[in-house]
Structure formats: structure tokens, C-alpha cells
């Protein structure tokens, strides 16, 4: 295969990918910083009060999260397209232009969030300042910008996929990315009816993270296995189709687990409970699949008498394996905990949700996208075998350990809320603060903050490791 596509230097698509990855990594750092602000406010309520209120810090935290992941996802596709299709990405010039439009729009939105913060109760605010709907607060003008950029991206993908070699991975990505972009439209309207509002809002949030993004991860994991350990394409792609069937089969109607209490009919209790209860199954399958392929390729090398590892990128592979497990743990196990209506009645909208949200987003997406950062760093620096470094090991340990610690803290805080605020005291304003002021709750908030600092330290080390790889002589070139 033309080696020029394997490195970032020969391919414009790969160059564009590195731009996307770089911007994503910066936003990841910003996400963590605003998360820390919000976490400090739980512990010291006066911190930045009426300067950068909790709502603003949190909004920046979760919007930076969504946007960095979307950037890293676009980057991943631009990275793997030349490898998969065997040709340079078509329309890459427009792709590059759209990148700058996208990045500029994000910067403007962030500045407005930071300095304008809130507006009057009118349509101008919705169009220019914020739409005020969790995760998709970006104002309407930015929505349209995002739609244009997403269309351009999907266009690049389709043109390239249709002209070049159309592998199973590319086929899945094409179908998946069009659904991903299309779903965003469901979040772009205003209604006075809060039940209708939330109904469609979940189409964006849930059908992204529990359907289209999961399938995306399946495709990326398939690519990574072929790329990093030389797994057999035919086997990998068969798994991919099975995963697609299971993920969409459970995830699409699993949407019902958000329709228990928002004004929607009671039949959603049953649909939501049972379809979403099946959602962890494909996540188990994905975990088994990654470990199985690893063992299999390593084993067949050993049969030939080779003792060296089949992995040509240790840090990336570490993150990919963490993804396989973290997806199962954060989304599968922590999701299942509260997905039955009998339980969700009490856990709905507590720190328990936050515990799940953190571990799921981290385990399912942050991990594999960081893995893609490492694959790109390997490619652009022409490295044949990339080793773990002290920094890469510290980074992965601090970030993952911190996330686990944070999840445990939030889960404990969630239990306090469920038992004290919801079950014992009757869910009122006073009941809410009875829960918040309990010792177990306040200590959990302290621990969350400490874990957050560990995560941020890990992030700094990660950035350093990624930036110094090019000069590091330990890697085989």
C-alpha cells in the first residue's frame, strides 16, 4: 500500500485530521477547567458567584465536551479515509475551509457564553446568545453553521467512499454519519410545550450517544484493530455488522428510558425499560471482540515463533482497550443501574445520573478519541512502532484513575440524594437541601474535586506526551 497515505505528510486528509485533533485537544483542556470551576462551586458556593455562575461554567463544560468530541470524530474520519478507500479525500479544500469556519464559530460562541452569558426573554436571545437547552445551548445562528459544516463533512465522506474502495467500515461510517448529522435538526426549534421540547431534545442527546456515536466507536475500533495489531478485516467487519445490529436494535427504542416522566404516555415505561436493558449487550460484545482479536493475532504470531508484540502503537492500543472496557462499565453497567423505571423514579436527575454521564462519556468516547490522537501522532511522525513512555503511562493512569474515583464519589452522592431527598423527605426544595447538606454528600463533593485535579494533571501530562513524541528517540522509526 502506498506508504504516503500512512503518514500525515503525504495526505491532505490526514493533515486536516491533525488540525481537528489539535483543536479538539485544546477544547478538552477547556472542558476540564470549567468542570473544575463548577466542582469548586459545589464545595465553596461563593466562588465566582455572579461573575461566572455555576450555570455558565457547567454550560461551557458540557458544550466543550460535545464539541471536542465532534471535532475529534471528524478528525478520525479524515484520518482513516485514505487508508480505507485507498484514495485522497475528495473535496478536501472545502473540508479545510469548513474547518476554519467551524473553529471560528466555536470561538465566537464561547466568548458570548463567557461574557454575555444570559439575555432577555425573547427570540433574539435564542438566535444570538443561547438556546438554553442542556448540551445544545449554542444559539440558532451557530446551529445553522454547524449544519453547513456537517453537510460538507458528510459530502467529503460520501464522495470519497463512493469513488474509492468501499470497505465495510466506510459503509457503516457513511450511513452512521448522515444519521448523526441529521439528528441535530431535531434540536433546532422552539416550543412553549416543555414536554414536546424534551421529547425532541432527547432525540439529539440519546440517539447521538446511544446509537450513532456508539456505532461510530464500533467502526473506529474496527479500524484500530486492523491498523494496530493487523487483525483480519473480514472477521473485524463481521463483528462490526453484528454490533450495528445490536446497537441500533436496542439503542433506537431504548430512547424510551428518557420518556418515563416528561409527560409522555405510560407505555414508554415498558418500551424504555426493556429495549434499554438490552443496550449493554453490544457493549459486552465489543469488549470481548477487542480482547479476542488481540489474543488471536498475538497467538498466531507466537505459533510462528515470533515473540514480539503485535501491537505497533502501545499508547493508542492502551486507550482502545480502556475504551472497550470503559464503554461497558460506564454506559453498560452504570447505565443499567438506573434504566428501569422503578429505580429511575428515584434516581432521575440526581448525582447518580451525573456519575453515569461522566463514566459513560469518558469510557465510551474520550478514551477511543485519545487513542486516535496517538494514532495520528504516530502517523505524522513516521513512527513504525510506538512505545509507551513514562508520560503516556502517567497520563492514562491519572486520567482513568481520576475518572473512576470521581464516578465512585458521584455515585455515593447520588445514593444520598435518592435516599434522603427523594425517598425519605419527599423531593421538595427543603428535601433537596437536606440531601445536599448530609456529610456523605459534602464529602463526596470534596472527593470529586480532588479527582478532578488529578484528571487535569493527567491531561497536562498527556498533552506533553503528544507534543514531544516527534522528538522522542525511544520509538522505532
Amino acid at each position, binding site marked *: 500500500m502506498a506508504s504516503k497515505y500512512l503518514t500525515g505528510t503525504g495526505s491532505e486528509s490526514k493533515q486536516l485530521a491533525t488540525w481537528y485533533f489539535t483543536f479538539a485537544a485544546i477544547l478538552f483542556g477547556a472542558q476540564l477547567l470549567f468542570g473544575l470551576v463548577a466542582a469548586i462551586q459545589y464545595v465553596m458556593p461563593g466562588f465566582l458567584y455572579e461573575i461566572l455562575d455555576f450555570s455558565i461554567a457547567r454550560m461551557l463544560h458540557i458544550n466543550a465536551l460535545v464539541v471536542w468530541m465532534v471535532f475529534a470524530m471528524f478528525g478520525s474520519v479524515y484520518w482513516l479515509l485514505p487508508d480505507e478507500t485507498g484514495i485522497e479525500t475528495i473535496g478536501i479544500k472545502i473540508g479545510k475551509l469548513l474547518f476554519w469556519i467551524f473553529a471560528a464559530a466555536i470561538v465566537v460562541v464561547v466568548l458570548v457564553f463567557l461574557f454575555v452569558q444570559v439575555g432577555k426573554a425573547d427570540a433574539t436571545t435564542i438566535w444570538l446568545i443561547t438556546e438554553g437547552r442542556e448540551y445544545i445551548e449554542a444559539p440558532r445562528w451557530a446551529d445553522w453553521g454547524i449544519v453547513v459544516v456537517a453537510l460538507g463533512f458528510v459530502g467529503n465522506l460520501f464522495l470519497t467512499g463512493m469513488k474509492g474502495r468501499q470497505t465495510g467500515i466506510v459503509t457503516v461510517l457513511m450511513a452512521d454519519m448522515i444519521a448523526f448529522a441529521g439528528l441535530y435538526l431535531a434540536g433546532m426549534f422552539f416550543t412553549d410545550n416543555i414536554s414536546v421540547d424534551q421529547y425532541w431534545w432527547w432525540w439529539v442527546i440519546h440517539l447521538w450517544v446511544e446509537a450513532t456515536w456508539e456505532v461510530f466507536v464500533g467502526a473506529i475500533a474496527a479500524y484500530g484493530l486492523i491498523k494496530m495489531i493487523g487483525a483480519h478485516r473480514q472477521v473485524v467487519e463481521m463483528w462490526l455488522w453484528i454490533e450495528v445490529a445490536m446497537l441500533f436494535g436496542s439503542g433506537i*427504542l431504548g430512547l424510551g428510558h428518557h420518556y418515563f416522566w416528561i409527560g409522555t404516555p405510560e*407505555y414508554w415505561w*415498558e418500551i424504555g425499560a426493556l429495549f434499554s436493558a438490552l443496550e449493554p449487550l453490544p457493549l459486552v460484545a465489543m469488549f470481548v471482540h477487542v480482547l479476542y482479536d488481540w489474543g488471536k493475532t498475538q497467538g498466531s504470531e507466537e505459533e510462528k515463533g515470533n515473540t514480539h508484540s503485535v501491537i505497533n502503537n502501545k499508547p493508542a492500543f492502551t486507550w482502545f482497550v480502556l475504551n472497550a472496557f470503559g464503554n461497558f462499565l460506564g454506559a453498560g453497567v452504570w447505565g443499567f443501574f438506573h434504566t428501569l423505571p422503578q429505580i429511575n423514579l428515584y434516581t432521575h436527575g440526581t448525582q447518580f445520573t451525573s456519575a453515569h454521564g461522566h463514566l459513560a462519556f469518558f469510557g465510551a468516547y474520550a478514551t477511543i478519541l485519545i487513542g486516535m490522537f496517538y494514532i495520528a501522532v504516530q502517523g505524522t511522525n513516521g513512527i513504525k512502532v510506538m512505545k509507551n513512555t513514562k508520560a503516556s503511562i502517567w497520563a492514562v493512569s491519572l486520567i482513568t484513575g481520576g475518572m473512576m474515583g470521581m464516578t465512585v464519589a458521584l455515585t455515593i452522592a447520588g445514593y444520598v440524594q435518592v435516599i434522603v431527598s427523594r425517598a425519605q423527605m419527599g423531593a421538595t426544595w427543603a428535601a433537596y437541601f437536606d440531601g445536599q447538606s448530609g456529610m456523605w454528600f459534602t464529602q463526596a463533593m470534596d472527593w470529586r474535586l480532588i479527582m478532578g485535579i488529578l484528571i487535569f494533571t493527567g491531561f497536562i501530562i498527556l498533552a506533553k506526551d503528544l507534543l514531544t513524541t516527534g522528538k522522542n528517540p525511544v520509538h522505532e522509526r
Partner: protein
Amino acid sequence: MFEPFTDVVPSFFGWLNQGPLTLTIFLHTVIILPMIWIYFQEKKRLENEN
């Protein structure tokens, strides 16, 4: 045999919702049954290819 309907507005899905499992067993069945048909079609194709 049939549970009385309790939700606010009667509907087809509400009616299928007879107990803890009826509705999803029904929906899962309609999703899975055609797979059998796909299975035998593909089996025939593989046999013809040989």
C-alpha cells in the same frame, strides 16, 4: 385475561401494554422473526455459490 386500561389516553401501544412484558415481547418478536427469513435466504445463496 386483559388488563383494564389505566393511562390517560387510550392507544394501540397502550393497549398492547398488558403487563410487565407484553409490549416489548411483541415488538422484539416482530423485529427478530424476519431474521429467520434472512437466514434461510442467505443459506440458500451460500449453497448455490458452492
